């Protein structure tokens, strides 16, 4: 680097920067009152409010002979967007749009029918659903500020299984085909699943924390004697999986 370059370029630059620092003003506080004090039109207790939510629920209702499940391992995971339209301080209408995955861990015992009588080390049915729920919201504290508060929701939800899978897992005593000892099978596009099902649901919310209970009102499995004929036991429809699930949700707001 030449001396000329330093004198002509670097030093003037350094000088300009240092003078700029000396001469400059620092704005410590700047408030635009009109911009800040506009009427709040959005928020949890305003006319329309929308937020994301996460949820987990567990199968809780009674199971049926032939389709017993392992409770605690049969669960439902949800992510969705919830919108509510405030009608009054007491009442609102709402819409849930969500994805939820229901997994039923099937009990491996004699008399098992779903989806066949084979017994495995582990067996699951999974339903990946897109769902839309319509609900009524009743606020329990009507005089509140701009937050959700405590509420009761009562609504119906339509589930459309976009993917259904049946998974089995077995560990062999001896190495089997390909010298592996674990066998996992996965069957998709299950034919015995209805195109859609619907549920009624109840929620008790404490601002962002919500307790949920959902009860499926329609059948999960189709009724078709031809589909089950190969079993030779006169089965025309699988025994239904538990209709009731209970869980919690977290509102992301």
């Amino acid at each position: 680097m030449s001396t000329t370059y330093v004198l002509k370029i670097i030093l003037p630059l350094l000088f300009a920067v240092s003078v700029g620092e000396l001469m400059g003003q620092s704005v410590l506080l700047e408030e635009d009152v009109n911009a800040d004090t506009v009427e709040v039109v959005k928020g949890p207790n305003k006319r329309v409010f929308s937020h994301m939510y996460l949820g987990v629920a567990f199968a809780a209702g009674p199971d049926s002979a032939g389709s017993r499940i392992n409770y605690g391992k049969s669960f439902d995971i949800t992510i969705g967007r919830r919108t509510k339209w405030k009608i009054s301080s007491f009442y609102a209408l709402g819409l849930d749009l969500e994805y939820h995955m229901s997994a039923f861990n099937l009990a491996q015992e004699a008399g098992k029918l779903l989806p066949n009588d084979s017994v495995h080390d582990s067996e699951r049915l999974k339903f990946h659903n897109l769902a839309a729920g319509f609900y009524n919201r009743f606020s329990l504290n009507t005089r509140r500020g701009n937050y959700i508060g405590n509420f009761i929701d009562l609504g119906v939800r339509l589930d459309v299984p976009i993917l259904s899978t049946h998974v089995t897992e077995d560990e062999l005593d001896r190495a089997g085909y390909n010298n592996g000892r674990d066998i996992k099978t996965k069957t998709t596009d299950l034919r015995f699943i209805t195109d859609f099902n619907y549920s009624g649901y109840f929620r008790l919310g404490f601002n962002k924390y919500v307790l949920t209970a959902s009860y499926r009102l329609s059948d999960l499995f189709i009724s078709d004697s031809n589909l089950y004929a190969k079993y030779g036991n006169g089965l025309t429809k699988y025994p239904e999986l538990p209709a009731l699930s209970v869980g919690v949700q977290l509102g992301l707001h």
Partner: protein
Amino acid sequence: MAYQMRTSLVLLVIFSLAWRPLGYAQSNLEKYWVFFTDKEQGAFDPYAYFDQKAIERRVKSNIPINHPSDWPVTFSYVDSVAAVATKTSHASRWFNALSISATTNQVETIAAFEFVKAVEPMMVISYPASMVMAEKPTYKSSISTAEMKLLMKQTARMEADAFHDKNIRGQGLRIAIFDAGFPSVDVNPAFEHIRAANRIIKTYDFLSKKENVYKHSAHGCNVLSCIAGIINGQRIGLATEAEFLLARTESGMFEPFSEEENWLAAVEWADKNGADLINSSLGYTNNRYFTSDMDGKTSLVARAANMAARKGILVLNAAGNDGSDDWKYQGTPADADSVLSVGGIDFNTDFHISFSSFGPTSDKRMKPNICALGVAMVAGPKAMEKAYGTSFASPLATGFAACAWQTDREATNMEMFKKLEQSGEFYPYFDYAHGFGVPQASFFVNKSAEPVASTFEMNTSNFEVSIEIDKAQFDLEGEDAGAMLFYHIENTKGYLDKYYVIAVRTYNVLQLNKADFKKGSTLRVHFKGYTKSYTF
């Protein structure tokens, strides 16, 4: 099957749309205020009811001693409502109201009484607050050098020596404090001088309905110390020789439905027992209200605070700690026009501390009114602590206000309110972060103080207004570098459109293009105690 499904779906929708939580409403108790249409004097004797200091305050302020607002609620009305409601709690003389716990059906019955004007639900939202439980202290009073600097500045910033050198320490003033508990105040060395002189006149816990307030949240202990504490001979607050009424009105952890009710009960209790000032470091915000409700009229506590002012009491309230939250603005009752709202400044920067709530009110009145340090050394139950919040700015200002009032006992509460604003370091300049700034004791002690000399020139041309700092007085490359200049733009409606604080590093500090401002709006600039304005 399909038919059954459709039927059940339709039935569910119909049921859910028609459903109301009747079972909930009928079985679940809610708290309500029952407002009565009228009341009579009956056997009310103000001389028996009020503390002598309350009588004196009324006489001094030319307030009627026997006023209907102080008459008790009509007993027969209370009895009739009590016969229906599940439970009755506090009767408010000022609002001619009774708080009750009742079901919806009971409320319908009560509302039908001809002597009932209205039944309104009480606020029921809870929020957590700080919680420090008291233990028998082995008191740690030693503090670091940095903490000692803070301890000294929190009163020196208000020119405390100007009061104390003249032995003005709040003598004869009675201060009521509404808070969440006062653990250790009965044993804490920071309050030894108060206990020794029996200057804690009365205490009452409005939650447990008992006199013992020396437990629960330590917040009240911290607050009292900022008004009147002394530790190792060093003052913590200014009114070290005032008298005190200590009221526990908040749970400190979770509100059990009725802080608003407790606040009302406490303010009437404070009035009855002769309070001259009330310090309240609570505020209700988004859990209960919208910012549009912060108009000083909507909330019952704001109306109660204004009523206290009409009884001659000077009410100071923390502006709130929502300055950096979505809420941003002061809560209630700091929004009430007769409440002196106190904001906070930072110890290090000496201007608005980030969390201190901003004004104005929703109807565009200036708040906060004044400010004090929003970080302070306070007496905790077991040790001296550094604490942040306008909860501590407010009692620092309350201690100041008691001393200020001592210098002019003939002044009414609202006259003192105005004087406290005028004593602010920026007065007549103001903004919605600082109000009129930190009050200065010299205003009250040196009443013939000379007007502040000009510190800058305001030059105008056809196109611009410029501000030039006085070179003869200030060395902006030396000790005055970074000195703060405040300016705002006030519109023709009388409220601020914009306001700024800038650190000055050049003499030609500000050039404003006239074309950028509406005709009639006012530029007001404050620098080093001097304020000048220009109307566009």
